[in-house]
């Protein structure tokens, strides 16, 4: 039976709007929080700010009253409502644009009928600009359901709407949900069995603990952060040179695995280079520098003719936009050219914020080129601790070896040896035969012929240098050779070491406001400062990135904690409590459950920004554990599941889909961290980049185990993203909202890409080898490895029919079976019958393509 059936019956004839209206205590609607966002979205083109069509302004309650378009308490005779309804024989407003939605109209109607309240909270500021305070826990209808405060807030909202939460999902669904959410990997059948059989009262918590402790937790959690940080392994644009920013990616994964508090995570990435270094171990200092790569991950244009200063400013803009979107949910970009139209952000605020990032000793274009790598100063060597220790030791050895060489050169024996060598060499030079073998350069030979006492200084030096390199013998020669060898080793080591682009304030610059964002049209000077409308930085705080970072995580900042918990929520529920994670400003969508958002934000901050603790609260809540089954009535009432009367169900990100397929098939290589790898990509994927002879852009496909690393480690070329990573962010600009679309091209990818075809084949081999000999057992096993649950009798019948069908198709054309099994580099098990295996492989690929396989339920 459908879980929503009872509800469906209850509300079968009740439209959603009526539900709201029958609420016993109707919510007070006010201008600041409810009406202003609607009017600014729909009316601002003609009736806001300097746009005053028909003399009417709608951008404040006072103006609306002055314009006499509302009569408080009487919506039916208020011109505002009449016009947006298109009544009274006048054109419907907004003229020429889509009419307001019913719910927006009803909000305005209620606002007028309730007497045009300015603000219910006594605060006239937009909610997100007011520091959150921990709301009291609401009273709810069913305290049994409340496992933690999250549930109280969710249930209270459902109570208001007279909705009931869904029952908890079954254990099999829950373990798959938790595994995919927390590690991005599906559970094995054994893990499912163990969890289902675990009768201990804390079985769920134990599972959650295990997953939080997994080294793969950080990999999963890093994905949205890499999107926000527009992380890639190349610069973008014409040369699209490779970079070493993967060291930063590993820093992120480790920080998340270590549960680094979010405030430290913030400070190190924004200003790790500015933290005190006294008595701090060298590797810690280095890691903090690496963390600041966050603001060097932007695109870098090395196109011939690119104007460095222009490109440098493009990078600066990107830092401002990315930092303010990621941490503050502010749309600063608007203020680049003019004061923000909706939010209290001035153009001066924009450039004052930019001033924090404007002291980097950089040119704006790549400065150091080595092979495929094009990087821009400043950068640091950033190998592993071991590599760095070895490198340091090697540097020491070179210094030591050089000292020995210099000692040798001072040796009293040396002049005699040189005289001897000169005599022998001169003699040999006289004979044409031996002279040819000696290969003494012409200029040296000439200099040698001048008696040693009569050579000028330059020639004497040339001869001596040549002797030192070529004429030494015995221990003198050994010392010198050793020095050269070590120097060569050092150069190679230097070449090998990753060089990570990082932040630095070594080049202070004066920042200006730019007229309409044009760097060639500077206006007034500005100093580094945070937006004036937000709480200011403490007066004693340094006016640099460190001060900025500390301001961002200060308890006074109204945005940071909310923005962050909203994105965690989005990760676990598909959508944030605020649907616009990139914008918390006036034009954002108001949260459906503002108390919950504020409670989470305060809890997060007061817990010492403990990320795992907060996420643990979320995933252990009853809200999270609900079944995601839904009745048609509920789909209609709450299509986006904003009120959370059911669990979230959404398609997995493509990176996770690939990882899950690799994991189910057993092909996956779970190595954590390191250089990016090059899994299968379509033929000639990068060939379009081969525009000059400067560089070969043939795709350097990896071999063996590297083909099966997790998708986070796939080399991300900024100009051509991996062909099979559909719906992923382009990693060109900051992205904090995942794209969730469904197109035929996605289906073609998971049906035909060799990665999935090979995974299907490997899964087939696995179940043929490991499961019971009958097809039923094998198909169940394959299905469970992908979907965790056991297929129903009906589903199993379909799978068995599919298997028979596939086997008979391959039987009728045995060559096709061989061809099908040849996909992918992994070696197939030759002991298996190819026809039968191809049949299973085809069914396994179908299982990997089920909606359920692609979805987190």
């Amino acid at each position, binding site marked *: 039976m459908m879980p929503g059936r009872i509800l*469906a019956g209850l509300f079968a004839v009740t439209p959603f709007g009526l539900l709201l209206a029958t609420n016993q205590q109707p919510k007070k609607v006010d201008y600041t929080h409810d009406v202003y966002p609607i009017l600014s*979205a729909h009316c601002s083109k003609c009736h806001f700010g300097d746009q005053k069509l028909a003399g009417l302004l709608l951008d404040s309650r006072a103006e609306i009253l002055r314009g006499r378009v509302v009569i408080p308490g009487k919506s039916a005779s208020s011109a505002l409502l009449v016009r947006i309804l298109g009544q009274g024989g006048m054109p419907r407003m907004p003229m020429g644009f*889509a009419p307001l939605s019913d719910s927006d109209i009803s909000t305005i109607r209620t606002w007028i009928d309730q007497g045009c309240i300015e603000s219910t909270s006594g605060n006239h500021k937009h909610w997100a600009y007011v520091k959150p305070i921990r709301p009291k826990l609401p009273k709810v209808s069913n305290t049994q359901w409340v496992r933690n405060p999250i549930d109280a807030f969710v249930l209270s909202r459902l109570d208001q709407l007279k909705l009931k939460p869904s029952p908890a999902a079954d254990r099999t669904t829950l373990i798959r949900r938790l595994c995919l959410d927390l590690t991005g990997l599906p559970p094995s059948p054994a893990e499912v069995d163990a969890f289902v059989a675990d009768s201990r009262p804390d079985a769920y918590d134990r599972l959650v603990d295990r997953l939080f402790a997994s080294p793969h937790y950080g990999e999963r959690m890093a994905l949205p952060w890499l999107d926000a940080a527009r992380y890639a392994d190349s610069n*973008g644009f*014409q040369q699209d040179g490779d970079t070493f920013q993967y060291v930063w990616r590993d820093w992120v994964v480790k920080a998340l695995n270590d549960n680094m508090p979010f405030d430290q995570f913030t400070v190190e990435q924004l200003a790790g280079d500015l933290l005190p270094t006294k008595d701090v171990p060298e590797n810690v200092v280095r890691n903090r520098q690496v963390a600041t790569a966050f603001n060097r991950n932007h695109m870098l*244009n090395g*196109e011939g*003719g*690119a*104007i460095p200063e222009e490109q440098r400013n*493009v990078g600066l*803009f990107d830092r401002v936009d990315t930092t303010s*979107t990621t941490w503050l949910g502010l749309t600063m970009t608007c203020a680049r050219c003019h004061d923000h139209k909706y939010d209290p952000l001035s153009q001066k605020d924009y450039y004052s914020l930019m001033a924090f990032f404007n002291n980097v000793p950089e040119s704006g274009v790549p400065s150091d080129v080595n092979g495929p790598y094009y990087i821009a100063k400043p950068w640091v060597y950033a190998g592993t601790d071991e590599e760095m220790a070895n490198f340091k030791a090697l540097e020491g050895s070179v210094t030591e070896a050089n000292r020995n060489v210099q000692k040798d050169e001072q040796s009293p024996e040396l002049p005699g040896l040189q005289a001897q060598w000169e005599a022998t060499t001169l003699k040999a030079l006289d004979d044409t035969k031996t002279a040819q073998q000696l290969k003494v350069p012409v200029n040296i030979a000439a200099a040698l012929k001048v008696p040693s006492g009569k050579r000028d200084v330059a020639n004497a030096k040339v001869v001596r240098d040549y002797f030192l390199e070529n004429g030494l013998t015995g221990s003198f020669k050994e010392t010198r050779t050793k020095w050269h060898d070590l120097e060569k080793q050092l150069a190679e080591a230097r070449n090998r070491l990753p060089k990570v682009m990082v932040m630095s304030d070594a080049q202070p610059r004066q920042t200006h406001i730019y007229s309409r964002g044009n760097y*060639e049209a500077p206006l007034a000077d500005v100093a580094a400062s945070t937006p004036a409308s937000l709480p200011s930085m403490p007066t004693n705080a340094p006016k640099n990135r460190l001060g900025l970072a500390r301001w961002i995580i200060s308890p006074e900042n109204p945005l940071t904690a909310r923005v962050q918990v909203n994105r965690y929520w989005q990760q676990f529920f598909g959508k944030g409590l605020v649907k616009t994670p*990139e*914008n918390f400003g*006036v*034009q954002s969508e108001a949260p459906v459950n503002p108390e919950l958002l504020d409670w989470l934000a305060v809890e997060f901050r007061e817990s010492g920004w403990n990320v795992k603790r907060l996420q643990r609260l979320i995933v252990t809540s009853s809200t999270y554990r609900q079944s995601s*089954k*839904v009745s048609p009535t*509920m*789909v*209609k009432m709450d299509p986006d599941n904003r009120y959370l009367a059911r669990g979230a*169900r959404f398609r997995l990100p493509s990176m996770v889909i690939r990882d899950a397929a690799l994991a189910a098939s057993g092909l996956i290589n779970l190595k954590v961290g390191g250089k990016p790898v090059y899994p299968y990509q379509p033929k*000639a994927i990068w060939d*379009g*980049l081969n*525009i*000059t002879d400067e560089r070969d852009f043939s795709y350097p496909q990896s071999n063996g185990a590297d083909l099966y690393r997790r998708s986070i480690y796939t080399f991300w070329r900024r*100009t051509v993203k991996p*062909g*099979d990573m559909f719906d992923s962010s*382009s990693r*060109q*600009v900051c992205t904090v909202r995942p794209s969730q*679309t*469904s197109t035929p*091209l996605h*289906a*073609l*990818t998971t*049906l035909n*890409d*060799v990665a999935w075809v090979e995974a299907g084949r490997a899964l087939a081999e696995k179940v043929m080898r490991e499961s019971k000999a009958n097809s039923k057992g094998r198909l169940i096993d394959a299905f469970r490895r992908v979907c965790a649950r056991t297929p*129903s009798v*009906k589903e199993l019948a*379909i*799978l068995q029919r599919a298997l028979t069908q596939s086997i008979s198709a*391959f039987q009728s*054309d045995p060559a096709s079976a061989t061809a099908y*099994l040849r*996909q992918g580099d992994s070696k197939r098990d030759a002991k298996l019958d190819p026809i039968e295996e*191809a049949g299973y492989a085809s069914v396994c*690929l*179908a299982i990997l*393509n089920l*909606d*359920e396989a692609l*979805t987190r*339920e």
Partner: protein
Amino acid sequence: MNPFFERDLRISRRQFFGKAASGIGVLALGGLLSQDGFASSLQGLAHQRHGTPPLPGLPHFAPKAKRVIVLWQGGAPSQVDLFDHKPGLAAHRLEELPESVRAGTRLSTMTASQGKYPILPAIKPFRQYGNSGTWMSELLPHIGSVADDICLVRTMNTDAVNHAPGVTFFLTGSQIPGRPSMGAWASYGLGSMTDELPSFIVMTSSDEKKTCGQLFFDYYWGSGFIPSKFQGVQFRSDGDPVLYLTNPPGMSADLRRKVLNDIAELDHQRLSEYGDPEIETRITQYELAFKMQTSVPELTDISKEPKSVLDMYGPDVLKKGTYAHNCLLARRLIERGVRFVQLMHSGWDQHSNLDTQLALQCRDTDQPSAALVKDLKQRGLLDDTIVLWCGEFGRTVFVQGDINRRDGHGRDHFGKCYSLWVAGGGFKGGKVHGETDDFSYKVVKDPVGVHDMQATILHQLGIDHERLTYRYQGRDFRLTDVSGQVVRPIIS
């Protein structure tokens, strides 16, 4: 939806699958699983719907055009040599460009510090074409032959001085990557006209020797912050035309069809238990993927094109990946209901090889571009198809490099005035728009900015460029940002 009605439908679905499994009705499956879920799937069998509808309220007014083909001339063709006829320059050959003309113009770093700016008149003569008598280079005889069908705009101008920002600006409305491209906007606003092909398709080509060095980045056809299903799909000349289009080796079309039926049947099981409409969407997309596997190879197979048509496009047409081949495919795409086709050709960045490359580029692109216009016209498709031929900017009237070396000189980037042409879709044929100064250096009359051109193209598609918006970061973004005016004189 009425739950009872829905259950009835599901029963009919189950019965249907019984048939599909036994091999009957495979073709009808697509109809049953058509786009909008239950309601339309009932109608589906009766009259199949094609494509997806436009946004509510769109088009804003009766459109003149339904489709667009962009013939992108990457690298920036020289307006001085091809379109902007300045006979007076010949008398000033290699004289210094007057400071009064040059002052205050932003140049790229390649010539900003050159110090000398000798004038180089058009390297080949101009002549008049068509009844309209349009002046164009004799290097463009074929485009000349359709002079009466094209509208030549000589007063384009752009802020960009380098390629990537210039292309990004023209195709997305902003110099900085991240905005939706014109094709994405059109698909988003107007919907698609076919189920069997993506509504926005991109193909690339390059001059044979790759002298140009221009790359085409995917954000030139990206969807920016609007849903990624609106981004352009690249048709490739090497391997599968669409990534992952072909079944894996050994997987026959027949077996794949059966496998897809199995997947759909299992997904329906899940749908009946979970009720999530997303499952319905997924089933539809898998069905469309199958359709695309047949329609794309049919589309790219030009073996049935008559010789007369192939001849029109010139000898390169038979070679995959060439501009000529892509032009022919563009027509085939348009015929099959694709909304927006963007050909990205690279070859015009003639800094140092104007003398050696200009003629070659004209040879490669002149005939196919003209053939496309003629071909569309003779099929009655030109009336409602816009063909836009343009690059990211123009080139300087003065020499870059050493005039004494044949392969050592050319012209630098120049955005203050350059030329493009548009045909079809209600643009006025035989029209020349705008006036530039004697040096092709400044616009004298009727300037046309990039946003103006975009506004005009959208206008012809029935879109008010100020009203096709997408809310992101709290702001209603549009292709033309905060400017753009429809250029009335060039449209009918």
